[in-house]
Every structure is written in structure tokens, then in C-alpha cells.
């Protein structure tokens, strides 16, 4: 007979299970070892194609290497570069600005929309949900090309501005020295807002209606109810939306590659784009690796921070 101690069904206090597991502890051990066989394919592929290259990148980050000739060890020089070379540290700052557009604004929009819409609209929601999730399934390369066209001199944005009498401020938005980064960021806002809104609305649906009744009895108005019932209620969704969108902002590559390619004059350069350019067109593999590590550290720091902040808010 199979040993129940090796399955999910172990329940504390069940005498049968306890005696069985003691009697056949060697069988249990064999089973737990055999379980590793099932893990092997996933572990091998994941380790070979993700973990091993990740560790290799750390090694590469200490080298001066063009990808062809023999490398020389330069210690932490490549990391020092990130702080000294304006091209590198400005790219990191640009990525931080993108967080405002990819995360802060979409989360805010999502929360406002949740307050306005929750519980009140049922009919036709399938249609709206399908539309609001659409930007999530499209390749960002295609999104980028679409927005290049919207932002172009003859594009729909300028057409609209001219139509409402703002013809004087029309321009090629992605080529504008001061505004290109914001124009790029706004594409992120467009991609992420629907996701945040749908996540929050789904979360808000799970809130116990009695909480609103109680708040109402305490004399709370709609705004107060939103702040003290809805907001805490969707906290897990806020956390996860912030994590997903922040990673997308910091590591964004596809959008920048097809819209501005870092220009004009490096105004929209981001770490991911530099990692690619340094490693594969400029032959500075070491610097590229150090920047990739720095980017990863930045992502981990932000994810940890977001989790901590939202946990403490409870």
C-alpha cells in the first residue's frame, strides 16, 4: 500500500498517519528522493539557461572584455563606471523616471476608477475587461510602433491638438529634447493603467459589503469609505500591480528600442538598452554585465521596498 505520509493528506493528530510514517521512514526517504526525479527536467533547464548565465554575468562584470580577445580582470572598475560615466548613470535615472509613468500614475488611475466604478457596473463588463487587458497581450514592439505613429508630426495627437486650437504646441513628441522621456513614459501609462484598474476592481469585489455598511453607520461618506474600506481591501492587488509595473519600467527595452532608441541625445536612454548596445555593438561586455547586475539589484531593491511599504501600511 502507498504511504500516506508522503502525500498532501498528512493531518496533525491523525494517529494512523503518524504510525505509518514512523514505520516506513526509509520508504519515505526513498519516495522523497524519487520526487527529485520529477523536478529534474525543470531544474536542469532553469539552471542551465537562467541561473548559470546569471552567475556568469557576475564573473563577466569583473572583466574588461570585447567578446573576442583575451579578457583582463579589472576588479570593480566596471561598477565604478556606472557612477562616473554620465551616459550610464543618467540611463538609471531615466529608468527611475519611467517608474512614475509605469507605476505611480497607473496605480493612481486604477484606484480612482475603482472608487468610481466598483460594484455598480455589471452588464457589458466582459467587453470592457477584454479591452482593458488588450495592451497586456500585445508585443511591446508593436505597441511602440503604434505610438511612434501617434506621436509623429502628422500623427493623431498633433491632429487632435490642432483641432482644439493648440496647433502651436504640436511637435514630433518622441524627438523633443525635453519631452521625449515623458512621451515614452506615457506609453507605459497607457499599457499599465487598464491592468491596474482591472486588478483593483477584482480585488474590491471580494471585500465584505458589511464593512461598507459599518462604515456608513459610522457616518463615513463615499470618500472616507473608499479610503478606509476599499484601499486596505485591495492592498494585495496594489502590491502586486506595483511590483509588476516597476519591473516593467526598470527593465524596459522593447518599447525604447523601437520608439526612440535612447535618443534624442541620450535623453531616453535606459539601462536595458545600454546593456544591449555595450555588449553587442560596442564590445564592452564587462561594463554591460556590471550594468545588468546593477539593474537586477535595483529591481530586487524596489520589489523588496514595495512589499515592505505595503505591508507596513496595514
Amino acid at each position: 500500500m502507498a504511504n500516506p505520509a508522503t502525500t498532501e493528506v498528512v493531518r496533525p493528530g491523525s494517529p494512523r498517519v503518524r504510525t505509518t510514517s514512523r514505520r516506513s521512514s526509509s520508504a519515505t526517504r526513498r519516495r522523497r528522493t524519487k520526487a527529485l526525479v520529477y523536478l529534474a527536467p525543470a531544474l536542469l533547464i532553469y539552471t542551465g539557461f537562467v541561473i548559470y548565465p546569471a552567475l556568469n554575468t557576475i564573473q563577466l562584470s569583473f572583466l574588461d572584455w570585447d567578446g573576442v580577445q583575451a579578457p583582463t580582470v579589472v576588479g570593480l572598475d566596471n561598477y565604478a563606471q556606472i557612477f562616473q560615466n554620465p551616459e550610464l548613470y543618467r540611463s538609471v535615472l531615466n529608468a527611475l523616471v519611467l517608474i512614475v509613468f509605469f507605476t505611480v500614475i497607473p496605480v493612481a488611475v486604477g484606484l480612482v476608477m475603482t472608487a468610481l466604478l466598483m460594484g455598480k457596473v455589471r452588464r457589458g463588463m466582459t467587453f470592457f475587461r477584454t479591452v482593458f487587458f488588450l495592451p497586456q497581450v500585445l508585443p511591446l514592439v508593436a505597441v511602440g510602433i503604434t505610438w511612434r505613429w501617434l506621436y509623429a508630426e502628422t500623427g493623431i495627437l498633433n491632429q487632435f491638438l490642432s483641432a482644439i486650437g493648440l496647433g502651436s504646441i504640436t511637435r514630433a513628441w518622441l524627438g523633443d529634447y525635453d519631452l521625449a522621456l515623458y512621451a515614452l513614459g506615457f506609453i507605459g501609462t497607457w499599457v499599465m493603467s487598464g491592468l491596474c484598474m482591472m486588478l483593483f476592481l477584482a480585488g474590491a469585489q471580494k471585500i465584505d459589503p458589511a464593512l461598507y455598511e459599518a462604515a456608513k453607520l459610522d457616518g463615513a461618506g463615499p470618500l472616507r469609505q473608499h479610503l478606509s474600506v476599499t484601499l486596505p481591501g485591495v492592498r494585495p492587488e496594489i502590491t502586486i500591480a506595483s511590483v509588476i509595473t516597476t519591473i516593467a519600467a526598470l527593465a524596459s527595452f522593447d518599447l525604447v528600442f523601437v520608439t526612440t532608441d535612447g535618443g534624442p541625445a541620450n535623453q531616453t536612454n535606459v539601462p536595458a538598452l545600454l546593456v544591449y548596445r555595450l555588449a553587442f555593438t560596442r564590445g564592452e561586455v564587462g561594463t554591460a554585465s556590471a550594468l545588468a547586475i546593477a539593474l537586477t539589484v535595483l529591481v530586487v531593491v524596489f520589489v523588496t521596498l514595495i512589499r515592505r511599504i505595503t505591508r507596513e501600511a496595514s
Partner: protein
Amino acid sequence: MRTAPTGLVLRYGLLTLLALLILLPFVSLVLAALHESGATVAGLALPERLHWENFALAWQQGGYNNLMRSSFIVALSAVPINAVCAILAGFSLAVLHPWAGKHLSVFFVLGLTLPVELIVIALYFNLRNVGLTNNYLGVIGGVVALLLPFGVYWMQSHFASMPPSLVEAGRIDGAGDLTLLRRVLLPLSGPALTTLAVLVFMWTWNQFLLVIVLMQDPAMRTAPAGLGLFVGQYTTNIPLLAAATIITVAPIVIMYLIFQRNFISGISQGAIKE
């Protein structure tokens, strides 16, 4: 809930406005694609004549025969490989209690936060050393591995959410591990597997950085990677570029419309369970 009709109208008005903001870019794109190739297009303008031939032109000039073939080879290989690995690993972690199971779970989940940029440089040189750049195997291995943290995690939480009595009953009937998985658990896992498959298909289809790095040969690139380069060559030919963009997204949009339930539940639950 009781709401005044005017309130309801305002709410639907707001929803419609937002939906328009999402859809308008695509309307603009489709209209642009129907203008004459090479013509200057102005924002939202109806073409004098519908130039459907742009799609054929973009297909041919962009080399979409090759691009689409590569895209389907990569995506249709990545989906089953990822699924099999994720099913076995998720089953093991959720049901079989392997040695160091908790640590191994964490080890996989770790991968959910790692950006592609961290691995792409070293992966390129590693694969180059063994002759797997410009090779479908390299790209497939890369995307499968990148999506395994999600896959394993998805299947593990799926198996863990199934009633323990199922496993118990299977065990009493004398089912071994593999029989338990194949005869008892998998037949009840259809929706979870469909969701995993469509998400992996989508993320593989959309993968860009990994493909442009590992595939230097333009003929072997996937559709989005090809489109990313097409942009450089046809910067000013908006109608052709728009047509190429529509061709590139068409398969994923069609899948989304068919499997929207799976997409939406996968994206939101996958996020929330984390």
C-alpha cells in the same frame, strides 16, 4: 446595489471613454495600414481607396514567410516543453514532498523577479561556445527557462489547491506517482493547463531581446524581432509599417479573442497568487 440612472450613465460613459483611449491607437493604425504604401498619412484619416495590398507587400518585404515560420517553431516547441517540465515539477513540489522542496520552490520563484537583461549577455556567449546561437534550440531553451519560474509556480499552486482526498483515494487504490498524476490529477487540470499554455505561447511570441541577441540571422528571427528591425528600414513608410505591425500581432490577438477567459484569469490570478 441601487444607483440613480444618471450615475450609471456617467459610469458607463467613463468606461466607454477609457475603452476608446485604449482602442483609438489601433483604429489609427488600421486606417494608416490601408493608405497607399509610401503615402503621407494624417492622423485619423480615411484613405480614398482601401489598399489591402499593403498586407501582401509588407508580408513580402518583411520576409514574413520566414518570420512566421520561426515564430511558430519557437512558440509551439516552447509551450509543450515548458508545460511538461512545469507539470512534473509542480506535481513533485505540491504532492510528493521532495528533499529541500521548500528551498527548491523559493529557488524557482526567485526567477520571477530576474530581468532578461541579467542573463542575456552570458547566455549569448555560453550558447556561442556550443554552437547554439542562430539555432532554434538556443532560443527555445532560453524562453522555456525564463518562463519556468511562472510555470512551476502556476502548476504547483494548482496541484496544491486540489482536494487532498483525491490524492488519498488514488493512493489507497495503489496508484504510483506517475499514475496518480496521469490518471487522477491531470484529467482535472484542463483549465489550468490551457491557461498556462496560452500565457507561455503569448510570452514566447512577444519575446524580443532574447531573440535579437541569440538570432543574428534575419531569416531565423521571430515576427516581433523582425518587425523591430523592419522599423529601421521603413521609418517613413507609415502604411507599410502599420500593415507589418498588424500582421505581427494578428496571431496573438486571435488567440486572445478565443481564449480571453484564460488570458485574463491567468494574468490576474498569476499576479495575485504571488
